[in-house]
């Protein structure tokens, strides 16, 4: 049965159902319980924004607080995964990858290859992405292009509560290392989510809106902005098809290429930094494989090549919004 719940509840529910189903699933991270070692309540926080709240009461020691030692505990999750557990490890903000990145890209991502196919590392790293919280340069980044760059990792970026739950369950059951990116500005998004357990396969894009004039590819929070823009543009007579890849590695190239075949025009909207970013990655793929379909330059709508500013007026300019998407679509639609 589907009911409306928040994105963050969808995450919680996915964890809950998988922990109930499979005793090898464990959860760890900074304050994912909260209160460990103190004189107050346990499960005091359930994650810095409350996403894992309540799991401690049900699963006790299978959800564990950690010291602030990301290399050690992310590495521990990875090591435990090679030894038969299915850890879901929280890296609070993706911005913190710099203090534990080696364990992810040199260890987890490469074990299977380096060891000639003998290792299996079913670890999930859940992490918050994105701007919009006035959290400034070190707590607002997207950075998933960096993980997408690395062979051996899978990268998942849900844009709705429905996808959050289905993709997270898939991530936990998946036998490869998965980076699961949760946009903090989506936590409060409400949407229909089945109460039973279900999975969404990786590498299958979602066609969020069908259209015939311009293809928009968008991820995470940008999907909603693209929808807003598309609604406005529809009134102007421009029909947009919106594709949400949902996973950037693997990437569903076919769905994007098919759409561009129909529309001939492509706008990619991404909140990550532009250089060697996700928008560039998709643009390059289409410029290689879908060139014959293209009737206009590919447009990329991204933030500028700057850190994320603190001040609200600047941050709002930094984040690609519906207005910039509309302008980009109009541009490519008019191109002849």
């Amino acid at each position, binding site marked *: 049965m589907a009911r409306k719940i928040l994105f963050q509840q969808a995450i919680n529910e996915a964890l809950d159902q998988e922990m109930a189903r499979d005793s090898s699933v464990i959860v760890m991270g900074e304050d994912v319980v909260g209160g460990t070692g103190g004189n107050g*309540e346990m499960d005091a926080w359930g994650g810095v924004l409350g996403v894992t709240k309540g799991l401690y009461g049900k699963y006790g020691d299978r959800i564990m*607080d950690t010291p*602030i030692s990301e290399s050690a505990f992310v590495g521990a999750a990875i090591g435990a995964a090679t030894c038969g557990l299915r850890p879901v490890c929280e890296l609070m903000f993706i911005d913190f990858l710099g203090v534990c990145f080696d364990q992810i890209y040199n260890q987890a991502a490469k074990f299977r290859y380096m060891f000639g196919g003998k290792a299996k590392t079913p670890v999930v790293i859940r992490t918050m992405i994105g701007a919009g919280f006035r959290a400034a340069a*070190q*707590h607002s980044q997207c950075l998933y292009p960096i993980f997408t760059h690395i062979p051996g990792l899978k990268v998942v970026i849900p844009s709705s509560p429905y996808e959050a739950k289905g993709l997270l369950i898939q991530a936990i059951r998946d036998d490869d290392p998965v980076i699961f990116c949760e946009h903090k500005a989506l936590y409060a998004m409400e949407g229909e989510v089945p109460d039973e357990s279900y999975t969404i396969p990786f590498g299958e894009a979602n066609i969020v809106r069908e259209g015939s004039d311009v293809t928009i590819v968008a991820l995470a929070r940008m999907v909603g902005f693209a929808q807003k823009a598309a609604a406005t543009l529809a009134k102007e007579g421009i029909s947009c098809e919106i594709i949400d890849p949902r996973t950037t590695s693997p990437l569903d190239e076919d769905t994007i290429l098919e759409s561009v075949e129909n529309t001939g025009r492509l706008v990619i909207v991404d909140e990550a930094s532009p250089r060697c970013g996700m928008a560039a990655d998709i643009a390059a793929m289409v410029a290689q494989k879908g060139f014959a379909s293209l009737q206009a330059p590919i447009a990329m709508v991204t933030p500028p090549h700057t850190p994320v*500013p*603190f001040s*609200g007026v*600047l941050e709002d300019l930094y984040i690609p919004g519906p207005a910039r998407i509309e302008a980009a679509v109009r541009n490519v639609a008019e191109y002849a």
Partner: protein
Amino acid sequence: MALSREDLLEAYRRMKTIREFEERVHVEFAKGGIPGFVHLYAGEEASAAGVCMNLTDDDKIASTHRGHGHCIGKGVDVHGMMAEIYGKRTGTCRGKGGSMHIADLDTGMLGANGIVGGGPPLVCGAALAAKIKGTGGVAVAFFGDGASNQGTTFESMNLASVWKLPAIFVAENNGYAEATAAKFSVSCEDISTRAAGFGMPGVTVDGHDFFAVYDAMREAVERARGGGGPTLVEVKLDRFFGHFEGDNQNYRAPDEVKHVREQKDCIRRFARRVTSEHDIAEQELAAIDDEVAKLIDDAVAQALAAPDPLPADLTTDVYIKY
């Protein structure tokens, strides 16, 4: 080098300024005027002041997410700080950094830091620069009990020791890293125990007592300036507010904060001692209180009235030249 009357009044002023600043930010944040994540330093003033009263503008400090106190302790302008916290163009960082990134290189404040454990490596560099340039300067890394478990912190202590750097590691142990108790996350009783593994002296002091902090720091600074290498100073103290603004602190015992505020207020303790032992009159302190209150009022008023950054500011200051 005993503290003069002026020094004591200055120490009081710094502590009081921190306290007023933080209490006021707390109020303003609750009103909704301040954006972002804000971590308050109230309760820990004796540490910032006790440390920084040993430093000059040539000395450097690196701070943490809980940086307001270190800034004020090191002499960063309060008006600029308040404007920064509001994200205004007149802020220390022109509104681009916010509470977690206030820096002021002129006063030797190398920056608050959004990354736990981000500061200690930088401090090794600041100390190295002082050593190579022969300035006689020292560099101080402030970090919390939580940060004491970060690899960067350990590495930095080792590096400072093998390079014999004029660096001082100040572990502000307030018992918590977010909602996790140090009793759990730090695998030894006193963080200062770890100094032995890095061949440096380590000491634990009561952070509610300005004088204890000051004295331990004086020794450490003298050692550093004299070429004797780094020291680890653990300061045990308590924070008056939550981890960040909005934290309900249910991981603390119900009466913990009340008790701390009543029994362990470093400023009241300082005031009692200097008025009884140091020939300082209560009125002198009261006068400072008034000045500080006005200063903070004024800082908030000016911050509120200040202009936002300009749209063009979005893309400046990324590179010096690109």
